[in-house]
């Protein structure tokens, strides 16, 4: 299904869909992201960027979440067509 190398979530554009591969953060950030559903294999869709370009809004597990680039940069995903 997905052959390309995983990329950072922060590189995705609005409308892109992806599957979570790995959360590279540590400590509190990592725990929080895991709890919010960033688990291996979970599908997400980038909804939009805030008017000033950051943070990003995405849909994961059926709800809407916003992430700053700092956090989205440490989530590796595989783009899904």
């Amino acid at each position, binding site marked *: 299904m997905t052959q390309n190398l995983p990329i950072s979530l922060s590189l995705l554009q609005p409308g892109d869909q992806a599957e979570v591969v790995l959360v590279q953060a540590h400590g509190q950030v990592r*725990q929080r992201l895991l*709890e919010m559903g960033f688990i291996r294999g979970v599908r997400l869709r980038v909804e939009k960027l805030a008017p000033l370009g950051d943070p990003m809004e995405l849909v994961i597990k059926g709800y*809407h979440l916003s992430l700053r680039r700092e956090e989205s940069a440490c989530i590796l995903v595989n783009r899904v067509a």
Partner: protein
Amino acid sequence: MPMVIALAGNPNCGKTTLFNALTGARHHVGNWPGVTVERRSGTFEHEGSTLEVVDLPGTYSLAARSEDERVAAQFLAAPEADLVLNVLDASNLERNLYLSTQLLELGKPVVFVLNMVDDAENRGVQIDVPALEMLLGGPVIPTVGNREQGITDLKAMLAAMARGEQLRCRRITVDYGHDIEGELTKLEAEICRDERLEASMPPRWLALQLLENNADAKRRVTESHASEAISHQLSRSFAFLEPHLGADGATLVAERRYGFAHGLVKEVATAPDDRLTPTSRLDAVLTNRVAGIPIFLGVLALVYSLSFILGKIPQDWIAEGFKALAGFAAARLPAGELTSLLVDGVIPGVSAVIVFMPVIMILMGCIAFLEDTGYMARAAFIMDRLMHLMGLHGKSFIPLIMGSGCNVPAIQAARTIENRQDRLITMLVTPLVSCSARLQVYIVIAGTFFTPVKAALAIIAMHFLGLGLAVVMGRVLRSSLFSGPSTPFVMELPPYRLPVMKATLIHMWEKGSIFLTRAGTTIFAGATLVWFLSRYPGIANRQWTAEYQQQRQAVQVLNLPPSESEERLRSLQLMHESRIVNTSLAARLGQKVEPLLRPILDPDHKRPEAWKDVIALTAGFVAKEIVVSTMAVIHQASEEPKTGELLSPLQVALRDGSGLTPLTALAFMVFTLIYTPCLGTIAMIRREAGSWKWAIFTVGYGLALGWGLAWLTVVAGRWMGFA
């Protein structure tokens, strides 16, 4: 003892609405011991049994990493909590069930509330309740909290549980898979070596937290005599699991929990429709790249005008009412200490408290409305980039802007910021934002010493200086006192919902009464103290009082026309008060302190009366509104301009008699902006930050920063050739 029900759930799951529906008006708001998290508890009765409900802070998990989570996790594990009531948002079931998997591990009976089932049905999600009960091992009651549907069923169920009927309860645990379960069993065996540790919380729950690398759980273990054996087993478990399953403990546990939640949802609920939800359609406009910011600014302008323009009307009535009351009392009672205590101390003190109420209640109502609709999260989403550059959070924007109306409710508005560090920084810099009370001081001073155009420029400059300083201090605080690891910005954008009017009203009332009881007493005490400082010993001087009364009588027997008589009496009163204030403890203090302020207020040593400014500034500690009226008393000149004249007698006195120059007047304005927040703000910081420490810190840094910048103003001004 009534049975205690702990109300747990995610943020935005309608928990508070449900709490209100259950307990009605019978609830109490306080703080959890040692932290600044609000604790709401209440009771309800059902068929003769009384039950107590404690509303826990909304959390996504019990990992105990934030203040909120720690409070929730500790209360749920404590013996006090008899039963857990887990509120689930039916339209977002999977993520809500993540917390449930943790609640089930606690070993206490859990009743589930499937809230907002109407929202879920609108999205095409049908939930099989009996199947959900089977899989969760506890009763599930569908409700629509904001329409109070299902509340009676819920009360009946809770009352039955209180009587000891374990209805539809089975022990359900998440299956973590063969490998993890094996390690959990080994860890549990080590934990059970210490009986006290075993009794303090279910061993399995502790073992899971250890596998997740939870700092609180690890701390608990270090206090145990079995700590070595447990740590040893833990490292062996990590050494086995991580290479074997290809991830660390935290990931593995989270994966299995979500696996459980995902499987459960697949089993009991139909998939939502693909069509656009009303929320997506609204967000297409409200967080639109182009329209998002203008709409947000519009909302902000509306909230601002409602609070500070509409709210000013009742505020003026209250202020006028108390002034009239003080005037009435002064005219009827004999001059002297007790009258002064009442007229100059108690009545203005009470007025200084009550006067905040309309603004606080309106602004808190607006903010509750924005939060309950879900727009607050969008506001933070829109502004976060800008605020993050300043070391703050997207949600700090609204308190900062509202600070320009009044700092007191602005500090209260910072409560919407979940993270404690972000909230503290916002509260500590908000007093730098120039409020409308300080504007009154600028108007008098700038109007006296500058031409109208320059005066307007100077006043605008003060506002920008305040905002700019808030930004700089935000960055400084972030990189000094709050340089610890910053918490992630992972913010849910909840679906838009229509708020319940009743909840908003309850919230407004709560905020207002908290202000009255907690901050009100501080303000009142401070106002009385400042009254004492500025009246004694002169007010107790019998001879002065007798002289004043003689002079009054002398005017009264002249039979002058009422207006002239009144004017003479007023100037007599001003003279009498001026004599008292200018010889008061505050004046002595002013003379003592004046050398410290000389570089900014009297750089040329040409102002023998610079100490009078210090009295006015001391009064400004209570409220900036009082600075001008105190100056009027000190300089024995009315603050009301005579008809047809541009400057008031006070302004003329300041211009001709005070020795202030345009440059020192500007320095005075700068100092007034920064030197200290008013008592209301200080009391509010104390209450919201949970300790006097931060309130005192705010005053201290304000004084230092204010002095420094006022001094710079003088130095830079002279260097540029101004006098």
